């Protein structure tokens, strides 16, 4: 390679309290490449990247940027040096307009005054470059996650950065949006920028990236041209062992109908949704982001109300808008947004796991802390949780491990019907396989599973039946046998399926 | 000193040797510290203490309230003072605490403002009688308005202030003698300068024909005078009430206020200490006691009256120091 690297990180070390997030991580980036950063949950990817973004300072190690030492510890300086970041989760300002979100902190000015018209025009122009349209004057509050991600992308584009960091940008996106993002990444590369791309979807990484760096336990274990390696090898690097059988589906015989949803309608969100789930069956709800899948399952569980229709569990109707009633009928919902909806961030692992099963942990009306911790440890073991103890606050866990705590919490209720929204979002391959194995095992034992997923492979690999939603309506039902990627995508994007 | 337990009246103190003990510890609790009026009263108390060789401390809440005074009463009990001289911020809240103080052997005397239950204190030093105050206020406002008369209003302190309410009651009764005056409103400025000024301005808006304002509280009259002196009503609306001459000098001279009154607050503290010291020395004061070379007698409910209110006008105001 004749080009000089634009960014090199050498021997990076970083501790959070007692946790070593990085111990000897390295990364070399060249202009004009898309560089995959891969690793298990908690491997240190986000930590490494947020350091480059100026959020943290390394304990030790060296960062060189364009041949000069990189000034750490200031997000502003990082940006001025030419780094733009799309964070793992979008960080918009709900009360500001989209235009201002794009330019916040560096609004174009004229004679010291914010140039509102200019800002609007430039925003429009940037969106046009992406081939999408969002009203620059609209406030960011209420944007769908995909739209939020688009704003983040435009924000990163607007700085003309030489290094663009994308930390799991596609985790919240469905295939179409992800594809659009990938084309943006390629265009940036062709413009000469270096793009760092984090994803737990290996297929995506292999499709998009030119080179990959693999982190394990905070250290860089491999760096390779994508052409010179294979997914199997990367997985081996990531987990340090061989992984077989990515979707370990255990065959099961569906029993009687457990969940029966009839003509469920909520004005403007979803309409006339009818389906059922049997015991022992895994039913997947597929569709594009924004097609209303989450809203349907939230309504089923009672978080949201619906305008008409009915939900029955077993023989009896489930009262609307009452999650407690759903819980009592052994229905569980693993929500899609783990940080906001699934977890109490400052609380310990034990408290997070126990919160839905307190009734079982009580004696004489008082909660038994010992039993609570023991239960949490049990689940920690079963899900291979990486944590320092049942009393560790979940905010100190990595994204994937947090997701495991959410799973543990809901599995602890011993549900008969498990509704699970994006079960493996942000989870690494190893854990993903564990989650899949557990789901399908439980299903074989008679658990009914209703799964919302934007990951086609997961949907195809796990589900006995696939329901496809588009614009708030169920548009297709496919059996495991007949379903293919193409059929699901066709249904999700609007072509009627004739099969 | 437990034998005077329940000593609710001076008579029960038994006969001492007729002399005030020296070295008495006397606590003074005003309605609120940081108040010029009570500060003036405390100068009188200190003077008395000097004369009789007693030590004298003032303590009390920063905002006037009976319930806040209770903790200070309790502290005085714990510190084993011989006597407590207090101006009750409200007539009822402090009664249980005062009775506890009495049963702990502490002589209680009220000054300036009394409690509702006379048995909760041995004596009360009142500035003057409600009757005299109410009638004087009516006379001053009537003089200020002139013979044609008109509507008047009262701007008082807190709605629950006993003194003011007693005076207002007399004002209302006595207005029968002034058929040309019509009381149209009573408002409360809570002894807060800002609130009083706003209330004064409100009065003038809601009563376009208002001719006079009576403000029987030092804070209220000063605030109202300040408002009037800068408004179109200056000289057109007669203001009178009870005020400290030191605060009212400017308004008296510029014609905002013609006549107002008060008493020397120092005398309240002065006599309060004397009354308390006598009782604490087991001297029977039922027949009166001597202070500063003058003899004071007890009236009904063991009350001692300082004298009629002093009238202030532009002519005499410079000769008063409080």
């Amino acid at each position, binding site marked *: 390679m004749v080009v000089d690297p634009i960014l090199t990180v050498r021997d990076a070390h970083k501790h959070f309290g007692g946790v070593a997030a990085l111990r000897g991580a390295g990364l070399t980036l060249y202009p004009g490449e898309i560089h995959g950063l891969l690793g298990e949950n908690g491997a240190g990817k986000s930590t490494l990247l947020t350091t480059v973004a100026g959020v943290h300072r390394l304990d030790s190690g060296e960062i060189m940027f364009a041949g000069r030492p990189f000034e750490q510890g200031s997000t502003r300086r990082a940006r001025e040096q030419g780094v733009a970041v799309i964070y793992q989760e979008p960080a918009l300002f709900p009360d500001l307009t989209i235009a201002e979100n794009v330019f916040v902190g560096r609004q174009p000015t004229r004679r010291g005054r914010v140039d509102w018209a200019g800002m609007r025009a430039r925003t429009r122009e940037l969106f046009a470059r992406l081939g999408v349209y969002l009203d620059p004057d609209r406030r960011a509050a209420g944007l769908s996650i995909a739209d939020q991600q688009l704003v983040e992308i435009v924000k990163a584009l607007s700085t003309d950065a030489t290094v663009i960091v994308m930390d799991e940008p596609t985790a919240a996106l469905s295939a179409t949006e992800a594809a659009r993002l990938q084309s943006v990444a390629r265009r940036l590369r062709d413009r000469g920028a270096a793009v760092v791309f984090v994803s737990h979807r290996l297929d995506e990484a292999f499709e998009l990236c030119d080179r990959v760096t693999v982190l394990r336990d905070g250290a860089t274990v491999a760096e390779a041209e994508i052409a010179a390696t294979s997914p199997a090898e990367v997985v081996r690097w990531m987990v340090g062992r061989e992984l077989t059988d990515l979707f370990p589906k255990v065959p099961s015989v569906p029993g009687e109908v457990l969940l029966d949803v009839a003509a469920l309608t909520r004005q403007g969100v979803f309409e006339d949704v009818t389906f059922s789930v049997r015991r022992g069956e895994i039913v997947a709800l597929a569709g594009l982001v924004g097609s209303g899948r989450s809203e349907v399952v939230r309504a089923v569980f009672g978080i949201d109300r619906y305008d008409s229709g009915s939900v029955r569990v077993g023989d009896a109707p489930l009262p609307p808008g009452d999650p407690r009633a759903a819980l009592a009928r052994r229905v569980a919902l693993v929500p899609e947004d783990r940080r906001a909806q699934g977890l109490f961030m400052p609380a310990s692992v034990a408290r997070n796991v126990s919160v839905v099963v307190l009734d079982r942990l009580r004696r004489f009306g008082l909660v038994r802390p010992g039993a609570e911790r023991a239960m949490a440890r049990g689940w920690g073991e079963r899900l291979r949780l990486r944590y320092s103890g049942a009393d560790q606050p979940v905010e100190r866990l990595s994204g994937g491990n947090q997701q495991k705590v959410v799973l543990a919490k809901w599995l602890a209720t011993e549900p008969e019907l498990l509704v699970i929204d994006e079960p493996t979002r942000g989870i690494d391959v190893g854990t993903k396989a564990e989650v899949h194995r557990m789901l399908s095992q439980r299903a074989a034992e008679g658990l009914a599973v209703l799964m919302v997923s934007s990951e086609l492979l997961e949907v195809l690999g796990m589900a006995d039946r696939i329901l496809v939603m588009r614009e708030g309506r169920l548009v297709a039902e496919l059996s495991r046998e007949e379903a293919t990627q193409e059929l699901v995508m066709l249904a999700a994007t609007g072509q009627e399926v004739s099969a | 000193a437990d034998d005077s337990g329940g000593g609710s009246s001076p008579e029960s103190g038994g006969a001492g040797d007729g002399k005030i003990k020296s070295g008495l510890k006397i606590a003074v609790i005003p309605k609120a510290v940081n108040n010029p009026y009570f500060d003036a009263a405390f100068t009188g108390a200190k003077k008395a203490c000097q004369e009789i060789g007693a030590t004298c401390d003032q303590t009390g809440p920063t905002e006037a309230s009976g319930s806040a005074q209770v903790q200070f009463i309790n502290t005085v009990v714990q510190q084993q003072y011989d006597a407590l001289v207090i101006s009750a911020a*409200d007539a009822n809240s402090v009664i249980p605490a005062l009775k506890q103080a009495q049963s702990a052997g502490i002589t209680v005397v009220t000054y300036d403002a009394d409690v509702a239950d006379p048995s909760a204190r041995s004596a009360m030093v009142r500035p003057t009688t409600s009757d005299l105050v109410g009638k004087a206020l009516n006379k001053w406002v009537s003089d200020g308005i002139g013979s044609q008369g008109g509507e008047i209003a009262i701007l008082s302190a807190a709605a629950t202030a006993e003194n003011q309410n007693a005076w207002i009651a007399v004002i209302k009764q006595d207005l029968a003698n002034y058929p040309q005056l019509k009381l149209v409103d009573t408002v409360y400025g809570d002894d807060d300068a800002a609130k009083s000024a706003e209330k004064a301005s409100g009065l003038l808006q809601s009563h376009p024909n208002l001719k006079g304002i009576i403000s029987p509280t030092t804070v209220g009259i000063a605030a109202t005078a300040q408002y009037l002196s800068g408004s179109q009503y200056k000289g057109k609306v007669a203001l009178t009430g009870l005020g400290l001459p030191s605060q009212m000098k400017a308004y008296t001279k510029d014609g905002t206020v013609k006549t107002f009154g008060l008493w020397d607050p120092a005398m309240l503290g002065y006599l309060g200490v004397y009354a308390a010291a006598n009782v604490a020395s087991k001297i029977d004061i039922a027949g009166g006691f001597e202070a500063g070379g003058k003899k004071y007698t007890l009236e009904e409910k063991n009350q001692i009256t300082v004298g009629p209110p002093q009238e202030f006008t532009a002519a005499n105001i410079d000769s008063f120091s409080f």
Partner: protein
Amino acid sequence: MIRGVLARVTWDKIVPVLLLLTLVIGMQLEPRFGRGSTFAFIVQDIGEIMIIAFAMTLVIMTGEIDLSVASTAALASCVLGWAFERGIPIWIAVLLALVTGVLCGAVNGLLVTAFGLPSLAVTIGTLALFRGLCWALLGDEPVASYPESWTRLGSGRFPHTYIPYVAPLLIAGAIGYTVLLHATRTGRWIVAIGQSPEAATFAGIPVARVKLWLFVHCGLLSAVAGVVYTMRFASSRPDAAIGFELLVIAAVLFGGVSIFGGVGTMWGVISAVLFLGALRSLLLLQKVPPNALNIINGALLLASVVVPAVIAAIPRRRRRSSDPGVSQGHPTSNLPSLTS
């Protein structure tokens, strides 16, 4: 090692130590401080604050606040007086006062939960409204004709002891509310709601209902405090307990409860109320000028947040890794308004 210890030192554990220190130092400085009567006075002085603090702690733990407690207490007191003066038997009047408190709490709770208004704004409004109703009800005529058998309950002590009649109430409350907050399902729910109302909803916790009941409960305890206040001062007055709301909130915050909810302990609050009462009593006995007391109170409140922050900063400094404020690698912990 030191860091490990420091990490476990939270403010709610410091407060009981402060309380003990105050008592010990107080007895050294001032022999009278150790007396039973001092104890009795302190307990009586903090009675109403403590009662309201029990409820306020629960409210603040859920991330809400109730500024109307003092006005509610006063309104309860005024209703009691108003009814009593009209010849209604006193115990029925007391019941009416408690019902008043419940209603006041329900108004707050409904405005917060059903209308989704911020509790700070709502209770600034009801603070004014309830106090206004006090004036409308009693005006310039306080009620003070309560029978001594009742007022003694407020200011008296059990015969031949230094134990005030309110003490058993406070002790029962202290034990009951500690257990409630820390060992029952309801307590866990309260903490969970404070940490994340949204996650609590998804965990099947009836967030709105819990909050509503906590406001109602806060109104009820404020009314209880109002009744105790009435009896202690043998009168009902529209200006009763003025400014108590900030005293109560200051005590709760001083006890280590986070104003954002989700963090805090009941024993911290109980120790805080006792400590502030004991300290004030000691300072007054030491003839510290009353004007200085506000300074000391304010400084203590500041210390309650500054000290933990400094403790937390010590180990961080030592590691020399000074993050510019972002404590977690995940930047969006603040995004709930986007996804509501």
